[in-house]
């Protein structure tokens, strides 16, 4: 019978297994420019400095408005948008920069809001799906295209795709279908409706060009 020799992460699995203590090594190679040694970190929160990671009041520029919120220092933008500002159109599906559902624009450039600390975007314009439509409520051409093309299925990925496409179209307003696919390639759709999504986004791009001409 196969039996574990060393514990899987974090298990304290009886005396036989607890001899090898799980060690938390901090190897800082991951951070870019970084201290690449390792150390042992005390597992007890009590041993960490008091008031670690407290909240600070921030003013953010979101969808053209100034919004104030108490933001923890380790808080991600997706977290702040969803839970502090109530902008739940930005979805959290993986929280690890692997699906694109949380895509927002920072100064018109698409970013994964799950992987941006809110405290790093103080001076940047944040646009979420809620800010895509005109202030009078007129839908953005990409939104109009979704309705015209019956785009997307469960739509959990939709706001991320729309924001990625909106950002991409600012750099390439007249893309080929292949270029559009590359432009939104950082977004995953698990309904795998990629073909209809491309129909939709290409239609939206066309509406944008027509709107720009008008």
């Amino acid at each position: 019978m196969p039996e574990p020799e060393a514990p899987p992460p974090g298990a304290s699995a009886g005396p036989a297994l607890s001899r090898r203590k799980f060690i938390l090594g901090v190897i800082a190679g991951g951070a870019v420019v970084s201290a690449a040694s390792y150390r042992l970190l005390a597992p007890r929160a009590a041993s960490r400095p008091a008031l670690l990671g407290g909240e600070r009041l921030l003013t953010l520029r979101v969808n053209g408005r100034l919004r104030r919120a108490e933001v923890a220092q380790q808080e991600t933008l997706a977290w702040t948008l969803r839970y502090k500002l109530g902008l739940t159109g930005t979805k959290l599906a993986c929280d690890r920069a692997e699906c694109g559902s949380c895509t927002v624009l920072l100064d018109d450039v698409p970013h994964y809001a799950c992987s941006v600390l809110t405290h790093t975007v103080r001076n940047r314009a944040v646009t979420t799906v809620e800010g895509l439509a005109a202030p009078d409520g007129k839908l953005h051409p990409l939104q109009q295209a979704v309705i015209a093309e019956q785009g997307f299925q469960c739509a959990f990925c939709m706001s991320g795709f729309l924001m990625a496409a909106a950002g991409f179209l600012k750099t390439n307003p007249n893309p080929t279908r292949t270029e559009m696919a590359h432009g939104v390639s950082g977004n995953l759709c698990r309904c795998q409706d990629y073909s209809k999504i491309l129909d939709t986004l290409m239609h939206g791009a066309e509406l944008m060009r027509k709107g720009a001409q008008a």
Partner: protein
Amino acid sequence: MAVVRDIMAPFDLLQPSTAAEAQRLLARYGADAWVLAGGMDSFDWLKDRIKKPAVVVDLSGVTELRGIRPWNGGLEIGAMTTLAEVANHPGVQKNFSLLADAVRHVASPQIRNQATLGGNVSQDVRCWYYRAGWPCYRAAGETCFADTPVGRNREHAIFGADRCVAVHPSDSAPALIALGAQFVLRTASGERVIEAEDYFVGPNREITRINLLQPGDLLASIRIPSDFAGARFYFEKVRDRNVWDFPLLNVASAMRVSGGVIQSVRLAVNAAAPTPLRLRRVEAAVAGKPPDASTGAMAGELAVQGAVPLQFNAFKIPLMRNLVKRAIGGVEKAVWA
């Protein structure tokens, strides 16, 4: 202690605006500090709660670490310059398209909009045992879980293994090595400039590290000399999915050809070993030969000599052989009717 792999533990976020200030903070907090650039690697460690630094030093406000400027006929790229900025820079595209090509193959558009060049070369390995927090050699433990009779190691190393069999995952690193780039470090004892390939630390030297940086050090910039400006370049990355995935293997070469023969060449592969590999033996062997199919074939065979496959990664040997072959001898293009 039970384990939860979600939600970053609290830390104090320090946001210096100059490199000097950043260095001062790093010196003060030493090993308690975590350096944050684009964060694409850092957030994994932090959200998995495997790393719980007391202090995170965010470099995004340090403007002097950002941007691309002329340098000695080549370019100097600030470590905090994003991969998208590198890929879209006219000077990079004109003279060093190898690098533009390489960074365009990193992850996804949104990641390239945020990840930095310094971060891409400094990122940690992606061995799934190590990244899951298992107490392996690289995590200062006493074993390797991937290199066992049943360990799953399709993505792992065919060269350079020394207890640890993880591979270096960077796409930009081999391109920078091929271009002869230099890395500019700021250390407590001042500025230090090193060759690209010397930046990376393999397990034979120190198993819990992946590069030269000591606590308190910063990678400030990467200099690309003019040697290979506008030269003949080749980059190819083979990965499973065409977005997001790390390389199963990549190759980068820069070559000067004159009179039908290779005058000078630099060649590197990554995801074959715990560090990016510069293939000096191959470089020497192809010098003076025409960059054709037969030289390519010879180069490919030479490149994989001494490779040691694990249970599931023997495919990397023909893959590396063929990528090196293409990098030297070119690709036989498909022409369909």
